[in-house]
């Protein structure tokens, strides 16, 4: 086969069609003349010869067409012809073209934007070599929950495991960088030596951590992120070996990570230092606190089940070299997750729901446009009937309709890409702050392939459905104008499409309704304190002088006094951890008279070291006993206040006041319960009740750092922020302020994933309802237009306007009703996927379902009104005369 010849001959024909046609014509002509001559030679008269040749050979025109149609260039030519024709038709009805293109752009654009956000998070492999072998390892709580591990457990697993190539532990670290520029508090991590090796990523500059770095009192060394290196050190390669001041200590920069390194476990981390824990594992030290995250890289060929089995057997068989304290006994075993699953677990329900919602929206837009195309193709019946009658082949007509569908889809898809490009940054801005891997969200190759595939698919749908519909009917029917009254089949298809649209819209809006009800319920939950007009400021005391407990306490006390003097402040207090801020500071609470139940053992109690004004400032209510006050200072008897649930659970039917307990290690001092306060939501509004114990800052054995200032304003809390900041800095200019937020912001953030899903569902739901209404309106309007004559006859025969309005409205409401029933069934099924996002409402919440039904019926009633009114105004005299 000579491709070259194929190509050149075809191109020659394409570029110079006239010459190529002339060539063929000449050859055909010559063939016929020779045939005629031959017949003449055999004795026929010239006329007879010509006639016989015609008879035997057919028409020269047909032969020429046959030759012409045989090359590949013919396909290109007809394609161009179809495109030209399609473009002409779109230009001829710009309203239709614009509405369809915008509808499709919405569907394709929204789907593409959501896909680009969801794809990297849910489906893309993490950006590490052999990422499938990366895992997270958790200690298991008595209730099966995943808990952070201790350093002791890490040491034991490091020594005893055979399944992992490397394992590492880490904890968050927030040092303050001082030096030439103003002090800056950075997010970082303290990591064990093999952290980067576990991920399989080496520093781009300098070296990785070595065993000598990660030991008690080891050297101060630090590895920088590429971003920090560029931002603070101008990307200077001479940074290696230089000292930087972190919390007043010099650290030597030993490495810089590559720009491509994505730290999925703490994306905001900008620098890393070795953990430097004590490998002799003193039993009272931090080495046995559950506060480390563990990652492990499986050996090649070791599956996750085998690793889980092995860790399970290690947990079950303690050895002498690794004695475990009771609270880290691993008696509930260890669990291993794929890192990928661990990273996305919290956001998966919201993302999957949103992805489902956008696909429904896409389906609705496709159905809607198919419906518009169908309505228009009804008007083109005559054209197609005529073309079939003139000899056009059906495949050719189908091709033309599909070409037109694809043109429309490409138009919509192109606009959709614009929608997606605008939508993706918007989506990232809207998305919950906790969305993992948000840096990987971008309109990239995979997204473009997705959008293109979607466009082609939709183009095929909106081309093929009308094509099959138009061509099913007989050619002659379309030619007979009067038979246009027989509208059954096509109306039926359109009816089905409208019903589908309504049903899909119901599914979307019911889901949106359920989410809305959940959010209402969530915000109706009492957080246990008054969240209004509350400003929160987290401050870290940094520098050597704060290694001294008294100095730290003095700084915070002086700063608190300064904050109280700010005009507009009605009350202010300090606390070590703030409700709803994400803080999670848990201790064991061991009561003297109520030994720990097994189930409570690793449950943990939130510990708050607070200033005595804390309860009044937050509006936490006293239930029994007294609050902490000026009595409770260093040297006086140690007092704590506990919350209601803890009191009720540990001392059912008894008085908890006066009970003694250890907070933390049992070698610590005894605290006495002096009061009981209302429950406060610590982790989130949706979380179940949590135990809490409060003591004053001065009666705790170390100074918490950072601490939160909580400030109650007389009026606007946010407006106080700069003044409060100034007040704190007036005590010490060098103390970095870590976070500033109003309690309202924090409350909103705890519902961020639900709110994110709700916003998208609500937006999609509105679009879906509007599209469904347009669908109903379009169908009825078309049907009224086609039935003008019938309506005219009816009213001539005495049908009242009310009857005619009723007739049209009934048709519309029947479609709505059918769609609604199917949609409700679908919504019940779909709500199963939403359960993870619901709060306080059943997935069958009647309010959501009835609300949506009411909305739908009113909207579709409006959509029915205009066509019904138009039908009622049909003047029988005019209609009948028009025939």
């Amino acid at each position, binding site marked *: *086969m*000579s491709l070259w*010849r*194929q190509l050149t*001959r*075809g191109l020659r024909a394409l570029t110079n069609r006239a010459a190529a046609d002339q060539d*063929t014509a*000449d*050859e*055909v002509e*010559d*063939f*016929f*003349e*020779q*045939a005629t001559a*031959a017949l003449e030679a055999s004795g026929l008269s010239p006329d007879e010869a010509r006639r016989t040749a015609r008879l035997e*050979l*057919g028409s020269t025109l*047909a*032969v020429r067409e*046959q*030759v012409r149609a*045989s*090359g590949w260039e013919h396909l290109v030519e007809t394609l161009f012809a179809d495109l030209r024709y399609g473009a002409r038709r779109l230009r001829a009805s710009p309203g239709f073209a614009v509405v369809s293109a915008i509808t499709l752009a919405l569907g394709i654009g929204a789907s593409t934007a959501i896909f680009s956000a969801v794809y990297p998070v849910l489906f893309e492999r993490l950006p590490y070599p052999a990422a499938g072998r990366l895992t997270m390892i958790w200690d298991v709580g008595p209730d099966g929950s995943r808990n952070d591990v201790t350093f002791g457990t890490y040491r034991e697993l490091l020594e005893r495991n055979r399944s992992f190539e490397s394992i590492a532990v880490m904890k968050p670290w927030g040092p303050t960088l001082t030096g030439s520029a103003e002090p800056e508090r950075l997010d970082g991590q303290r990591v064990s030596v093999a952290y980067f090796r576990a991920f399989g990523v080496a520093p781009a500059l300098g070296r990785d951590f070595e065993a000598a770095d990660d030991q008690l009192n080891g050297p101060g060394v630090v590895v920088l992120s590429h971003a920090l290196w560029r931002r603070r050190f101008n990307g200077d390669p001479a940074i290696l070996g230089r000292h930087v001041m972190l919390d007043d200590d010099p650290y030597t920069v030993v490495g810089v990570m590559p720009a491509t390194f994505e730290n999925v476990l703490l994306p905001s981390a900008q620098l890393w230092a070795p953990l430097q824990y004590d490998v002799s594992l003193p039993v009272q030290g931090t080495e046995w606190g559950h506060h480390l995250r563990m990652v492990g890289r499986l050996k090649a060929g070791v599956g996750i089940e085998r690793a889980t089995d092995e860790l399970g057997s290690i947990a079950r068989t303690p050895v002498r070299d690794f004695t475990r304290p009771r609270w880290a006994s691993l008696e509930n075993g260890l669990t291993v997750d794929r890192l990928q699953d661990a990273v996305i677990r919290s956001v998966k329900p919201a993302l999957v729901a949103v992805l489902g919602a956008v696909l429904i929206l896409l389906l609705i837009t496709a159905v809607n446009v198919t419906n518009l195309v169908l309505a228009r193709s009804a008007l083109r019946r005559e054209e197609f009937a005529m073309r079939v009658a003139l000899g056009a082949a059906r495949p050719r007509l189908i091709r033309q309709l599909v070409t037109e569908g694809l043109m429309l889809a490409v138009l919509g898809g192109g606009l959709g890409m614009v929608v997606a490009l605008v939508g993706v940054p918007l989506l990232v801005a809207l998305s919950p702050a906790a969305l993992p891997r948000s840096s990987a969200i971008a309109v990239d190759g995979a997204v473009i392939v997705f959008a293109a595939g979607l466009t082609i698919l939709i183009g095929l749908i909106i081309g093929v459905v009308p094509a099959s519909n138009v061509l099913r009917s007989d050619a002659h029917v379309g030619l007979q104008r009067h038979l246009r009254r027989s509208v059954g089949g096509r109306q039926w298809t359109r009816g089905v499409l409208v019903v589908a649209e309504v049903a899909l819209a119901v599914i979307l809006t019911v889901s949106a309704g359920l989410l809305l009800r959940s959010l209402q319920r969530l915000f109706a939950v009492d957080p246990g304190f008054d969240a209004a007009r509350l400003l929160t400021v987290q401050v870290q005391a940094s520098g050597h002088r704060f290694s001294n407990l008294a100095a730290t306490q003095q700084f915070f006390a002086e700063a608190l006094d300064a904050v109280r003097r700010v005009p507009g402040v009605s009350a202010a207090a300090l606390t070590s951890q703030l409700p709803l801020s994400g803080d999670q500071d848990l201790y064991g609470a061991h009561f003297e008279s109520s030994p720990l139940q097994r189930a409570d053992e690793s449950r943990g109690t939130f510990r708050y070291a607070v200033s005595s004004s804390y309860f009044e400032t937050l509006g936490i209510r006293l239930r029994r006993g007294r609050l902490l006050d000026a009595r409770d200072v260093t040297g006086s008897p140690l007092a704590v206040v506990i919350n209601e649930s803890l009191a009720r659970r540990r001392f059912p039917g008894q008085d908890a006041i006066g009970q003694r307990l250890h907070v933390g290690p049992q070698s610590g001092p005894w605290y006495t319960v002096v009061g009981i306060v209302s429950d406060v939501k610590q982790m989130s509004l949706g979380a179940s009740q949590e135990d809490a114990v409060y003591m004053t800052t001065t009666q705790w054995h170390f100074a918490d750092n950072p601490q939160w200032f909580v400030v109650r304003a007389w009026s606007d809390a946010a407006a106080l922020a700069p003044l409060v900041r100034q007040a704190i800095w007036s005590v010490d200019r060098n103390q970095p302020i870590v976070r500033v937020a109003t309690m309202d912001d924090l409350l909103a953030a705890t519902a961020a994933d639900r709110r994110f899903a709700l916003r998208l569902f609500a937006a999609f739901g509105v679009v879906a309802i509007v599209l469904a209404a347009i669908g109903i309106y379009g169908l009825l309007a078309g049907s009224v237009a086609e039935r003008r004559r019938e309506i005219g006859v009816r009213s001539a025969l005495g049908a009242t306007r009310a009857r005619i309005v009723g007739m049209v409205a009934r048709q519309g409401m029947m479609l709505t009703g059918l769609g609604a029933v199917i949609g409700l069934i679908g919504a019940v099924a779909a709500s199963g996927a939403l359960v993870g996002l619901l709060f306080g409402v059943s997935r069958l919440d009647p309010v959501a379902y009835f609300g949506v039904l009411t909305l739908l019926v009113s909207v579709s009633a409006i959509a029915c009104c205009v066509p019904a009114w138009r039908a009622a105004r049909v003047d029988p005299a005019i209609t009948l005369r028009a025939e």
Partner: protein
Amino acid sequence: MDKPNTDVIQGTLDLLILKTLSLEPMHGFGISRRVEQISRGVFKVNPGSLLTALQRLERAGWLDAEWRDTANSRRARFYWLTRAGKKQLELETDDWARRAAAVARILKAET
């Protein structure tokens, strides 16, 4: 009574054209007539199929073509085999012989 079927057996038109042209360069009508004569009228080639096939074979590189004067001083488009065409003819001839023999064997088989 129906006219006897004079259609060329499906898939053999190329072979017939190549074989005919292997004897001498020829124009379209010449080929048509030669096939009809040699087959004693069993096959008739209609001009549409023939010219389409000629265009295809020419593009495939098996034929070359040129406008030339005919014996009776008319102009006609002549076709002749290229080297590739000769090879193709051998291939298709062998292939046909193999398949025809197989068909013949099947038809002769005792039931």
